């Protein structure tokens, strides 16, 4: 194995070992050790809850995030291209931005009740603002020379969007997409603690409420962390596509 893989793996192993050591030195610390947590994950798998909860959480993130992406990119492009629209709408975005998506939980439940739709709505909100603002800023950062060249060749508006604007903002957009997906994953867990009856967030709350099963609480946390990393790695792969690599610092 190459050193670039070995070192991170060693780091994780050391952390797990320290956790085990800590738990065995202080049995009164109330939290279960890694072995108990691993057994907890096994138990979830055996009861069929592991796959069910992971799928439920991913399902909500997928819908909320993709809907946000579909709305945010055209909106951000339009705002970036039309300074007057931006002047009117940007203040609204900026006021909404510091409001945690979690503050919307009561309203989400009011509108959509307890269920998937509420959670999806919260994830949509959490992803929408950063993606819109990032798209808008990316349009501002397009090299004016590229816009001038596109104008010079007289290509129609539609082609100008698909062949110049979108590819020009893509490197910045992908970074924003990666960050937004991270936020969406944070929010789904919180939303599931309150607004639904399944998913990894629900697992954590439910395991505590139904008998203080802290092994399952931590099992939920470990799963959240592991899936979050996988999502992030998948997004990083997109950054290596040939048509966007120009936008990142030279390798």
């Amino acid at each position: 194995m190459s050193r670039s893989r070995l070192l991170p793996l060693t780091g994780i192993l050391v952390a797990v070992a320290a956790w085990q050591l800590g738990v065995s030195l202080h049995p009164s610390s109330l939290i279960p050790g890694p072995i108990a947590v691993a057994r907890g994950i096994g138990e979830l798998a055996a009861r069929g809850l592991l796959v069910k909860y992971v799928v439920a959480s991913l399902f909500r993130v997928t819908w909320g995030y993709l809907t946000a992406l579909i709305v945010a990119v055209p909106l951000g492009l339009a705002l970036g291209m039309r300074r007057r629209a931006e002047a009117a709408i940007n203040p609204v975005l900026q006021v909404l931005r510091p409001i945690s998506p979690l503050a919307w939980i009561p309203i989400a439940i009011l509108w959509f009740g307890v269920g998937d739709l509420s959670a999806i709505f919260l994830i949509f909100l959490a992803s929408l603002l950063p993606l819109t603002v990032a798209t808008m800023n990316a349009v501002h950062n397009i090299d004016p020379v590229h816009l001038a060249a596109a104008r010079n060749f007289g290509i129609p508006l539609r082609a100008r969007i698909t062949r110049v604007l979108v590819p020009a903002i893509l490197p910045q957009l992908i970074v924003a997409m990666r960050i937004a997906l991270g936020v969406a994953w944070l929010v789904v867990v919180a939303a599931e603690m309150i607004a639904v009856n399944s998913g990894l967030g629900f697992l954590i709350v439910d395991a505590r409420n139904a008998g203080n099963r802290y092994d399952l609480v931590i099992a939920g946390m470990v799963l959240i962390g592991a899936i979050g990393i996988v999502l992030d790695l998948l997004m990083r792969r997109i950054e290596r596509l040939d048509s966007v690599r120009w936008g990142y610092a030279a390798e």
Partner: protein
Amino acid sequence: MKVQFSDISMRFGAMDVLQDVSIGVEEGEFLCIVGPSGCGKSTLLNIAGGFLSPVKGTVTIDGDPVTGPDRRRIFVFQERGVFPWLTVEGNIGFGLFDLPDEERQRRVAQYVHLVGLEGFEKAYPRELSGGMKQRVEVARALAVNPDVLFLDEPFGALDSITRLQMRSELLRIWRAARKTVLFVTHDIEESVQLADRVVVMSARPGRIRRVVEIDIAHPRDLSSRRYIELRDLIFGEIGLAHQV
């Protein structure tokens, strides 16, 4: 006249950049515009390209006033005008969006060949040298078969050896395609090597000080007496004694 500048004046805020510039460019002519930096030579080219409107005066091309950019006359920026998200092929074919696929591929191949980039069709700009990127941009401009090319210090960012090579390549292409070329540079040697006529501009606000005809046949001998005479004439006109 192919391109006619009449009494062009330009101002940015309170700063006068160009003052009453008038000159005509013949069809097929290679015209260089030189002058100290900030003299408005780039601005003049941007006005002709339709990217800026002058505060006074008009530019006509084939008798029609310029009102905006037009694909019949293409502006070549320094190499950074190449789209980094497209391959060499994609860049050269960029302006050919209205051609059927087959015709477009044929044209792209033709211009890849013209600028000597065979084998790099699938390469991205980040994999190319500055000179190669500049060639991509020239090919992209020529591929739409414009009648006028505007070049704004196109070789300014290249090293001196590549710059020399690119000059002779541009001359070869210009002789083959016979476009009208307006070429802005701050490099006096470059202007004397390339141009039919050199327009020498004054410092800001830019005015035409003198128009020098370069009556030396191509290929030009850079150590000939006439070359040195004309070069020194322009150096003198700009107010630089030719010594370091």
